[in-house]
């Protein structure tokens, strides 16, 4: 299995394709129930992952965002950039697990 650093690089490479188009949000149950608050949507999650991996920004908001994801993959099938959104979020939990 890959080491954590490899996994981080892998995730980062994938999430950096996000151009913030928001086409993922309309199918996401958590952002829907949370009145469209972006931290509960795929675009928000992906971008919080980016800020953590690139700038080291860690906060309770990040945890709230990442651990409310259902991993239901609805977003994954919407992303025009082909980002494996749910899987990136799941694997990112590995990284948070150690923090």
């Amino acid at each position, binding site marked *: 299995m890959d080491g954590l650093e490899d996994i981080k690089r892998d995730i980062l*490479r994938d999430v*950096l*394709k996000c*151009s*913030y*188009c928001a086409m993922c949000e309309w199918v996401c149950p958590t952002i829907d129930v949370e*009145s469209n608050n972006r931290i509960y949507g795929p675009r928000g999650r992906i*971008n*919080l992952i980016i800020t953590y991996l690139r700038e080291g920004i860690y906060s309770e908001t990040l945890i709230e965002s990442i651990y409310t994801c259902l991993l239901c993959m609805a977003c994954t099938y919407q992303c025009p950039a082909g980002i494996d959104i749910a899987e990136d979020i799941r694997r990112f939990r590995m990284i948070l697990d150690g923090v």
Partner: protein
Amino acid sequence: MNRHIEELIKLLGEDKVSTDPITIKLYSKNAVYYEGSALAAVFPESTVDVSKLARYAYENDLKIYPQGSASEIVGSSTPREDGIVVNFMRMRKIKEINYVDSYVVAEPGVRLIELNNVLRRDGYMFPIDPASIKSATVGGAINSGSGGMMGAKYGTMKDWVLGLEVVLPDEDGTVLRLGGKTTKNREGYDLIRLIVGSEGTLALVTESTLRITLAPERVVTVAGFFGDLEDLMACVVEIKKSKLDVLIMEFVDDATAKMTVETLGSKVVGEGHLLITSVSTVDEAAERVRDALVHIYDEAGANKIYSALTMEEAEDMGIFDIRRNLYPASIKMASMGLRDDEEKPYIFVEDISVPPTKLVEAVRRLRNISDKYGFPMVLGGHVGDGNLHPVVWIRESERDKMEQFNKFVLDIMEMAIELGGVISSEHGIGTVKKDGLIMSFRSKNSLKALRLMHEIKKIFDPKNILNPDKMLPSV
């Protein structure tokens, strides 16, 4: 805590105001890598909330940056640290649907896809279908003056707004109701058309009454590849002369079609430029329409022709895939070109229009410009209305190329103006195309129009607190 924040919380309640820096960050970006910042992100839930906000902002010289999904790509929705983002996505009710009178009343935070999913169940639709239909909100689409694939038949947002409720950034937070529920309306100056496409600089839209229409009973689609662009245009001319009810007419150039097929695959393949035409018709006439279209494609010299008798069939065949994949393909191409895997690709979608008869010339010149600057380019667009979307990308590490890139965009805009077209068709001006606006009006010897626009802005927004410095260049 900033004194404004305390006041806003008192005014609206704690759960409608976020000062969490991470949350604010997520509300300060748009779909083209602009990143601003803000004092707070505010989430009104009603017209009353918005009115209170506007009055407070006016009294305290606080800037307001309105926003929907932030899927715009010109910098019109991003805030600055001197103000607050006002995000409308908690106002997301479809308040009324009236099929007899053909309208819906929707709050600004409703996404266009949500609206259509409801209407389609009853055989109706809202026909403005931007490629971003899954993200675009009613408020954002109104303020961007959005258009889509069916623009050839249905025009753009400006043709579909019957009524608006808006809040003005004045001492009362005035709520105005403009227009109404009827298609015909001649009550003085058309303030609705002024607000449509105003990029959040004139008023805050809190409700809209939109026209709706029947979804076509049957949509027949034909796609074909042309070795020669002139042949493709000849085909377009013939179709236009044929009196068919054209719904969609889309184009992808040869290099792009090839690239898209290679990067993302496609069931529809062929050599050359791709032309896709969808025609609205009735069940009984479907085959006749299909045959007529195929005949025109054939006569015009298409080397490979695909046809579908229904939209479902077209989707199954993947007829639209190459056109739809323009944007995904660009992202893919851009990512593949990265030297360092951890670099970010930046994608830019241009948005000029030329009269359709000038398309061949425009494509030729676009390619020259792309060669001149060495930016790889993906090219497609709406042939029906002459709207072209050249897409280019640069790498994060090549920020120094930005200057080149800006020149490249200026060249493209200049070309559009020369051919009698416009520098922005549906994406807007934002902060990135202000120069183009000057260029365009200057070419028509009409710079005074920009001064008029500034005066209009001043009447609506006397203190310049609403989305300041967006859209209007200083003259």
